[in-house]
C-alpha cells in the first residue's frame, strides 16, 4: 500500500514535466518533418510555448497564489521570477517570429514558393542546370 502511495506521489510530482516534454517534441516534429516554411514557424512557436510552460510550472507552489500582494502575512505566493523571465521571452519570441515571417515573404518573392523541397530543387538548378553561371549561384 505504502509502495503504491509513494509511486503516486512520484508521478504527481513529475507528470507536468513529462507532458511538456511530449508537447515540445510535437513542436520539434512539425519543425523538422514539414517542408512548408510557415508551418515550420508554427512548430517553433509550439516548441517555444512548451518551454514557457516548463518554466512556469517550476515556479508553482502548491497551495500558493499568484504573486500579487494580498496584505495577509500568511499568504503563500508562487515564485514571481520565472514569470518575469517568461514575460520577456514571450515578447522576444514574437519579435523573432516577425523576422522569420518577413524572411518567408522575401523567399516567396525571390523563389516563387515557400516549400523547402522546391527551393532546394531551384537552388540545384541554379548551380548545375542549363545556363548556370560559372561557379554556381553562390559565387
Amino acid at each position, binding site marked *: 500500500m505504502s509502495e503504491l502511495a509513494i509511486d503516486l506521489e512520484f508521478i504527481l510530482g*513529475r507528470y507536468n514535466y513529462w507532458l511538456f516534454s511530449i508537447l515540445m517534441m510535437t513542436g520539434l516534429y512539425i519543425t523538422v*518533418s514539414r517542408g512548408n516554411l510557415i508551418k515550420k514557424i508554427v512548430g517553433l512557436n*509550439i516548441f517555444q*510555448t512548451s518551454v514557457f510552460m516548463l518554466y512556469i510550472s517550476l515556479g508553482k507552489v502548491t497551495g500558493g497564489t499568484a504573486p500579487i*500582494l494580498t496584505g495577509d502575512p500568511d499568504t503563500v505566493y*508562487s515564485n514571481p521570477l520565472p514569470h518575469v523571465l517568461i514575460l520577456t521571452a514571450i*515578447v522576444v519570441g514574437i519579435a523573432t517570429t516577425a523576422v522569420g515571417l518577413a524572411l518567408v*515573404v*522575401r523567399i516567396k518573392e525571390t523563389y516563387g514558393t*515557400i516549400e523547402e523541397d522546391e527551393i532546394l530543387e531551384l537552388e540545384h538548378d541554379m548551380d548545375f542546370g542549363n545556363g548556370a553561371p560559372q561557379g554556381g549561384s553562390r559565387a
Partner: protein
Amino acid sequence: MNANLVGIAIIDIVFFTLLVLTAVAIIRQRSLFAVAMLSGVFSLLSAGLFVTLDAMDVAFTEAAVGAGISTVLMLGTLALTDKDEMKRKRSALLPLLVCFVAGAALIYGTLDMPPFGAADNPVQTHVAPEYIERTPAEIGIPNIVAAVLASYRGFDTMGEVVVVFAALVGVLLMLGTTGRPSGKRKE
C-alpha cells in the same frame, strides 16, 4: 494536500489534452489558414494553463501577443504567400525517430528533478522570497512581477526593448517599400 494536487493534476491534464489535440490538428492540416487559426487556439489554451499555474501576467501577455499579434502576423504572411501546404515526398520516419529519442532523453532527465509544487524546491528558496519580502517596502505596488520586471530588473527589460527594436528594423529592411522594385525581381 494530496487531494489538492490531484485536483490540479486533473485540470492540467484536461488543458494538456486539448493542447495536444490542437498540435496534432496542426500537423495534419494542409490549409495554412486553418494552421494559423489553430496556432492562435494553441496560444489561448496555453494562456489558460498559465492561469492555473498562478502566472496571471504571463497569461495576459500570451493571450494578447501569442493569440493576437502572432495570428495577425501569420495571416498577413499568408496573404503575401501560399494558401496551402504541398504534400511532401520524402518519408517522415527519421524525424519521428529523432523526436522519440529526444523526448525519451528529456523524460529520463526529469526523473531527478525536484517534485512539482513543493515549497522547499531549490528554485523557491534562493532569491524569490527576498523579492516578495522587499517589494512592499521598496517599490510599494502589490504586483511583484511588475516590480521585478520594471524596477529590480529594469535593465533586462531595456535589453528586451532593444531586441524588439532590432527585430523591427530587420523586418523594415527586408519588407520596406522604399528602394525595392515592385513585382518579381529579375535575376
